[in-house]
């Protein structure tokens, strides 16, 4: 790890002002320190956000039922949050409770989880060149070792987005609050728009500018309704990164699906929303057969690589499980 200076800003405004092209924000630092050790990143200045709990911390439920999750909320706090007790929020609690290890969950922040970089072994090792970080001109994973890589939505790089929280938040229709260098530059965007529209090799993994800070995630009141679930597959049961993941949010009324929202994780460079699946099952009576059919159609468009075709089968099963759990069909 190269040396860096550590900036401890008093406020969010100071943090945004201090940031620039040669700096990196740090929350808990779990992803950042890993990249610094591998010398994939080499910032002159690390700007600390962890001490800005007043502005970036806390979970607040508002009177109308919406919930604000501060960017510094830890994955464990989200998994245990009583403000997220409603079955509608289940996918987020499950996604965070299953992520990583107890040690990581106790410190990893929501903001850092959404903005972490991908886990492609070519990108993560500076022994290899990589089109994504600009050290090479070709994606080595495309024709190389690509067991954990993408099925959908790739341009010229087959990385997958590793976050557990992201697909759950997409399914729940969350919005992200972002603050730029000055307070009036604050904006709120749907979480889908946090990730690049065309995730090409050279596209950054999220759309935030150097000085922009993810302040909070907002869950709409509508997310509390119905039930949502998150399911993932992984190679190692104790803990591991997901090989496929699915989050589903369903509102069932009078025995029919009145509202649906579905998103896959770990299969594309971005969280991979399945709006067509949601549309197809809306108005239908929930059943495993319905969900299996929808999953089959969704994975028809998959473009497996040499070593990841297993994700097509496994991903369908995980999607069916998530939908069944969200419909209350389990057990």
């Amino acid at each position, binding site marked *: 790890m190269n040396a860096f200076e550590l900036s401890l*800003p008093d406020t969010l405004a100071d943090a945004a002002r201090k940031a620039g092209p040669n700096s990196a924000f740090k929350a808990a630092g779990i992803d950042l320190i890993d990249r610094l050790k591998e010398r994939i990143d080499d910032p002159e200045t690390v700007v600390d956000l962890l*001490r800005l709990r007043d502005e970036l911390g806390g979970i607040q439920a508002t009177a109308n039922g919406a919930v604000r999750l501060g960017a510094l909320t830890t994955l464990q706090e989200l998994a245990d949050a009583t403000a997220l007790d409603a079955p509608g929020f289940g996918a987020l609690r499950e996604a965070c409770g299953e992520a990583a*290890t107890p040690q990581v969950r106790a410190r990893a922040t929501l903001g850092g989880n959404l903005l972490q970089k991908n886990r492609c072994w070519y990108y993560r090792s500076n022994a290899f060149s990589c089109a994504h970080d600009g050290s090479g001109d070709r994606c080595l994973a495309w024709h190389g070792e690509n067991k954990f890589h993408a099925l959908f939505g790739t341009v010229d790089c087959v990385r997958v987005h590793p976050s557990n929280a992201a697909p759950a938040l997409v399914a729940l229709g969350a919005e992200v609050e972002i603050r730029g260098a000055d307070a009036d530059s604050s904006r709120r965007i749907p979480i889908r728009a946090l990730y690049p529209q065309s995730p090409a090799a050279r596209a950054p993994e999220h759309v935030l500018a150097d000085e922009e800070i993810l302040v909070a995630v907002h869950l709409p009141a509508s997310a509390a309704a119905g039930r949502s679930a998150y399911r993932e597959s992984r190679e190692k049961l104790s803990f591991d990164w997901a090989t496929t993941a699915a989050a589903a949010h369903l509102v069932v009324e009078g025995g029919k699906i009145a509202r649906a929202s579905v998103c896959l994780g770990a299969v594309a460079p971005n969280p991979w929303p399945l709006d067509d699946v949601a549309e197809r099952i809306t108005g239908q009576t929930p059943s495993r057969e319905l969900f299996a059919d929808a999953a089959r159609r969704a994975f028809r468009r998959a473009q497996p690589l040499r070593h990841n075709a297993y994700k097509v089968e496994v991903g369908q099963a995980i999607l069916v499980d998530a939908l069944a759990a969200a419909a209350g069909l389990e057990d």
Partner: protein
Amino acid sequence: MRDRDLREGGSRPSGFSRRSFLKGASVAAVGTGLATEALADAAPTDGLIREDGVTTVPKGALEITLRVNGEDVAVTVEPRTTLLDALRDRAGLTGTKKVCDRGACGACTLLLDGKPANSCLTLAWDAVGREITTIEGLADGENLHPVQQAFVECDALQCGFCTPGMVMSSVACLQKHATPTPEQIRHELSGNICRCGTYGRVFEAVANAAKNGGGR
């Protein structure tokens, strides 16, 4: 602005005085983290750079005080120094082990404000003002902590290299669940890898420790 002496190598032994640091640490203990106002008192004479609402720790080494096992320990660290390296290489507390150095094995597990943490992915500066509990801090004199005692009685180790981390995660597990189910034990220990494969005995030790008040 920047104190050149401190940039590389940081030969000045105590750039950041213990006294002013303790002030910061005690504020932090009550509040929400290291209070930057307290740091402001220390700069610039103490080697920190203070400007426009930002306190900057320059690249070199400075002395900070960590609260380890109930005692203040002065360590000289750079911004990039991990808590693991600060404890092992600077404070001489080598009970906490380094294996993967990437958050994936749990050998470096300790408790930060009572919660399990991978010290290899934690900056030493991020531990300022927080209670650090390492394997060295568990026993009460000659009396082992119930979890340690249970590990001995169950022979829950082979080479022993993962053991300090396993014990710390076990303590964290019992603080969360006083009488854990087998599933809870597995879940709470899932961040610790034992290359000798002693898991069965470890799970048994945690269950036994629970019976003997390990969650104290």
